[in-house]
């Protein structure tokens, strides 16, 4: 000890040269100016530069200075920066440098650079945009090292201007001065621009006629005044945002919203809204402290909030108790709200139906002109499409419903380590794909539906982009075993060495385990729509016992007949007919005809199909049960957006409270020790309640409590029998806050650890992560990192 400390004292004044390689989120977040400032303040000489392996720093000075530098680097790190690792090595002293400098990047081999996410416009930039005296006044593409586009404009690494979509725009001298000045807020802010040198802004009519082109601040101010006027007149504008176009209209204008809904053929789907400021949101929604934190975060996602009783959101979010709101995150939004004329704008992804969000100007003008009256756009290209993220706070935890802008491509640390690189292609709908390398996973932005040529092309293009950007060469590709998933088809065509087929609900389970860092035997309670099972039926109410490598289906919902394929999912009344028939046979069909008199012909045929087993598939999907009950109660006959029947059923349930449940029986399969959850008695009782004119709110609530109770009973029973400590919940049904809260609270009370999805969506956006984990586990080369 004494020897060590004396040696240290001895060395404090010794001059040394150190090389540091810093990895993490260290590019595009003001890291180098920060290093520059503290190195100079500590009177060190040397340089800092970006490489594609990370930020490289060489420092020369006394041991004491070097030590203080290191402490300050970690202690005073800029808000958006994040250090993963620092590799330090000693170099011979040179005595060459006269001072500390920032050296411009040079390209090397690709490596572990972390591409930053897109960041909400910062307060300094906000101030400048609205300051008449500032040269950025009204400039809609203003940004700095603390804010602005990143992931959406980066074409390749290292993150330099020529690798972004700002490459065609030559900086003016004012911008260049800021860009070159290490202590400036815009030092090496790659997408920096101003009215003098940046992309122009245009207002164009539906017919493609340019109304205004603006670059100077005065022109811009006039252009935005005109855009606001159009919105106030009830016009719909396609506005180019960070990761794609939005359809924008005045949310308080019922005519405008109705028009947008009609054009988009979206009669009821909730539309996201953007409020001018936080106060407006608080006036109409209940906002908890944590919800507020997420709303104003640099990620600025859409946050699902409870409506206040006094607030009327029937235009944008009909039939439900919540509304998705966000605050302006790009300067272009701020400028639409620059005066107090507009309070709330509808901001919904702009895309032709079933297609990815539109990002290209030309495409917008030709493909979106039947939806909008005007276009508000600029010439900065969007390299990567990126939808708005969607977050809901449940049990005081932010839960990702759509993980995209602001979060992509942030990495997630995993509890296992793979020495193979794995591409997991994800699900067919709400697609997100994932790359696993070592003990980290990068999830792609929201890719959406793959079931179209455009969707498939978008998927393939993005996979290519990720591999280039992050220098990935997968050895293994993992995919869902559903025989008709397009995404699986594509995966099988990819030229990687190994291919692994993964069961849908096992992937759901593994996904939730992974995000919570769990290993070991776990009980997964997967309540989902429908996914392809190991026995060729469609699963969806599954209690799986296992780990990443394997699972057994320890209990599952009774199979229900789904008549006529996907039509039965799009039209929940068909599921209700199935339930009525299951419960009461012929009489059930007559009841169905009484409930839907104008469908009696179809009901007659559905009945024949059920009796004769024609075009029927069997599914244990919880989503299908929710659909059937929702339709049976007259809440939702036809689903106009995914999950509508279940979402609206939950809204009914939330209006009630009663302390009783329906009957659910557990039977055991003779061949195996698998428990079957038999819904029949519950369905019988619900039909009886309905016939006795019990209020649908009460039935809906009791139904929720019944599902919660049977799940809790099973969880407690199974964990006891198998001496388990941990339970995970996954699958789309767990978006249901009422159900989730009931189950989590009850299981917690029983002293078990229960986890639900937070960082990764519980819906099919989350399965890529699970697929990657399972593939890694199955390769047998896995080491535990803990």
């Amino acid at each position: 000890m004494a020897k060590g400390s004396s040696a240290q004292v001895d060395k404090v004044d010794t001059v040394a040269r150190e090389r540091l390689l810093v990895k993490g989120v260290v590019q595009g977040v003001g890291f180098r100016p920060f290093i520059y400032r503290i190195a100079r303040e500590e009177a060190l000489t040397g340089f800092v530069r970006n490489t594609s392996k990370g930020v490289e720093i060489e420092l020369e000075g006394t041991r004491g200075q070097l030590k203080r530098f290191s402490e300050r680097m970690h202690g005073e790190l800029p808000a958006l920066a994040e250090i993963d690792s620092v590799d330090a090595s000693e170099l011979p002293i040179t005595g060459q440098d006269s001072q500390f400098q920032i050296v411009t990047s040079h390209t090397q081999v690709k490596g572990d650079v972390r591409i930053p996410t897109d960041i909400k416009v910062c307060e300094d930039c906000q101030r400048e945009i609205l300051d008449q005296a500032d040269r950025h006044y009204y400039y809609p593409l203003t940004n700095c090292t603390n804010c602005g586009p990143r992931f959406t404009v980066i074409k390749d690494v290292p993150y330099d201007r020529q690798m972004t979509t700002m490459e065609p725009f030559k900086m003016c001298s004012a911008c260049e001065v800021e860009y070159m000045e290490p202590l400036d807020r815009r030092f090496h802010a790659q997408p920096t621009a101003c009215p003098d040198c940046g992309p122009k802004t245009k207002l164009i009519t539906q017919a493609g006629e340019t109304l205004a082109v603006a670059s100077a601040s005065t022109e811009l101010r006039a252009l935005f005044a005109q855009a606001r006027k159009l919105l106030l007149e009830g016009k719909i504008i396609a506005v180019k945002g960070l990761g794609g176009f939005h359809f924008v209209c005045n949310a308080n204008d019922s005519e405008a919203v109705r028009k947008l809904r009609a054009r988009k053929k979206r009669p009821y789907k909730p539309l996201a809204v953007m409020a001018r400021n936080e106060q407006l949101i608080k006036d109409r929604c209940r906002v908890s402290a944590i919800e507020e934190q997420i709303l104003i975060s640099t990620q600025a996602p859409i946050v699902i909030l409870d409506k206040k009783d006094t607030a009327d959101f029937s235009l944008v979010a009909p039939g439900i108790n919540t509304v998705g709101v966000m605050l302006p995150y790009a300067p272009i939004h701020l400028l639409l709200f620059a005066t107090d004329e507009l309070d709330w704008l509808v901001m919904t992804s702009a895309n032709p139906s079933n297609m990815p969000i539109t990002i290209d100007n030309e495409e917008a003008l030709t493909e979106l002109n039947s939806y909008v009256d005007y276009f508000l756009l600029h010439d900065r290209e969007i390299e990567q499409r990126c939808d708005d993220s969607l977050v809901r706070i449940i049990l005081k935890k932010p839960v990702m419903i759509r993980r995209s802008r602001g979060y992509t491509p942030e990495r997630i640390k995993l509890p296992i380590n793979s020495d193979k690189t794995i591409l997991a292609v994800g699900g067919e709908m709400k697609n997100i794909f994932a790359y696993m390398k070592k003990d980290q996973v990068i999830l792609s932005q929201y890719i959406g539906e793959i079931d179209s040529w455009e969707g498939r092309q978008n998927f393939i293009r993005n996979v290519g982009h990720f591999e280039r950007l992050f220098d990935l060469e997968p050895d293994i590709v993992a995919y869902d075993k559903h025989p008709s998933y397009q995404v699986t088809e594509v995966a099988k065509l990819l030229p990687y060495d190994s291919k692994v087929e993964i069961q849908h609900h096992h992937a759901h389970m593994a996904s939730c385990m992974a995000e919570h860092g769990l290993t070991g035997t776990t009980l997964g309670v997967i309540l989902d729509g429908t996914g392809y099972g190991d026995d060729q039926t469609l699963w969806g109410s599954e209690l799986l016992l296992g780990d990443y490598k394997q699972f057994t289906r320890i209990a599952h919902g009774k199979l229900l007949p789904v008549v006529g394929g996907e039509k039965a999912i799009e039209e929940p009344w068909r599921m209700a007919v199935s339930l009525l028939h299951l419960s009461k046979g012929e009489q059930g069909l007559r009841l169905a005809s009484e409930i839907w008199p104008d469908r009696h012909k179809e009901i007659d045929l559905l009945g024949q199909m059920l009796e004769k087993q024609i075009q029927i598939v069997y599914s244990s999907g919880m989503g299908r049960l929710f659909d059937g009950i929702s339709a049976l109660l007259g809440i939702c006959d036809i689903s106009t957006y995914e999950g509508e029947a279940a979402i609206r059923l939950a809204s009914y349930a939330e209006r009630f409270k009663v302390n009783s449940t329906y009957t659910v029986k557990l039977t055991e399969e003779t061949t195996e020790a698998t428990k079957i959850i038999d819904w029949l008695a519950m369905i019988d009782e619900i039909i009886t309640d309905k016939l006795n004119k019990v209020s649908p709110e009460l039935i809906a609530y009791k139904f929720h409590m019944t599902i919660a109770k049977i799940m809790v009973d099973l969880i407690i029973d199974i964990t006891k029998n198998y001496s388990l400590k941990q339970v995970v919940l996954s699958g789309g049904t767990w978006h249901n806050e009422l159900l989730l809260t009931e189950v989590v609270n009850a299981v917690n009370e029983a002293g078990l650890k229960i986890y639900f999805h937070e960082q990764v969506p519980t819906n099919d956006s989350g399965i890529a992560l699970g697929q990657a984990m399972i593939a890694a586990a199955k390769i047998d080369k896995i080491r535990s990192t803990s």
Partner: protein
Amino acid sequence: MTEKILLAHGDGGKLTHDLIDNVFVKHFYVDNNALPDAFVADKEPGKIAFTTDTFVVNPLFFKGGDIGKIAIAGTVNDLAVVGAVPKYISCGFIIEEGFLIADLEKIVESMAKTAKEAGVAIVTGDTKVVEKNKGDGVFINTSGIGFVPENRTLSYKEIAPGDAVLINGNIGEHGMAIMSERSGLNFSSPVKSDCQALNNFIEKLMEHVPEVKFMRDPTRGGVATTLKEIATDTGLNITIEEESLPVSDELMGAVDLLGLDPLYLANEGKVLIFVPQDKVETALEIMSSLPEGIGSKQIATVGEGNGQVFLQTAFGGKKIIDLLAGAPLPRIC
């Protein structure tokens, strides 16, 4: 004659001869009582087209036709779509012991009638009887010979980007007719099979539009499968316009309920015709003027590509059309 088919009807003895004389010869051979083992076509010009097909339809009788009508029309159509004028047909029967002779005669009559209307001769045949439960009533094989006029060359190799794909009316009706008969579903307005011979229709069209490049009958697997096969063969893309697909209201109602896709349902009286874009109007005019072509439409266009078929949906967005792998399972989660 007995009422039912006996094993002895297939042994080549007396009963066989009785059956041939009383059922087959009576209906098939109009001007010639001979029963050749092989038929000699000795005065035909042109290139020979030769095809064979085996028919195992269940049920044997359905709305709009029966196995006999399909057995003739199917083979006639296979010849006609390659540009041949069908002339001679052979037919082989495999009959299950116990099959009603009255039913057999109905089938044979239907074959004779279809052949007559199509202007083809049934010139040779064969009959075998299998033990009860070793067959499904009756199976029929027909082979056909036709002759292609010297100057006529139809080939998928002629297909080029820009060409139009025409069809002579409503799609999917045979598949749905069979499906509903087989399942015993009672639709209030049932769909009839479109089963018909198309050789006269095709001949008329070729006469007026010799520019026709290629034809195929979209039978098993429907329009989707047939176009996918052609796209793969040519290496070109084919884009189907969803809104232009001729589908009857009855069929639409039925597929909607059953969760089926009319693009994949079989047709037995339809032909897909590839013509250059500038002949579309003329071709459709001729087609629509003929009874087999009521409701003719352009449904697709050929483009550059790599062998893909797309369905341009009414909403916007293109779906990829592929060969069907088993029964479609819902994918919505």
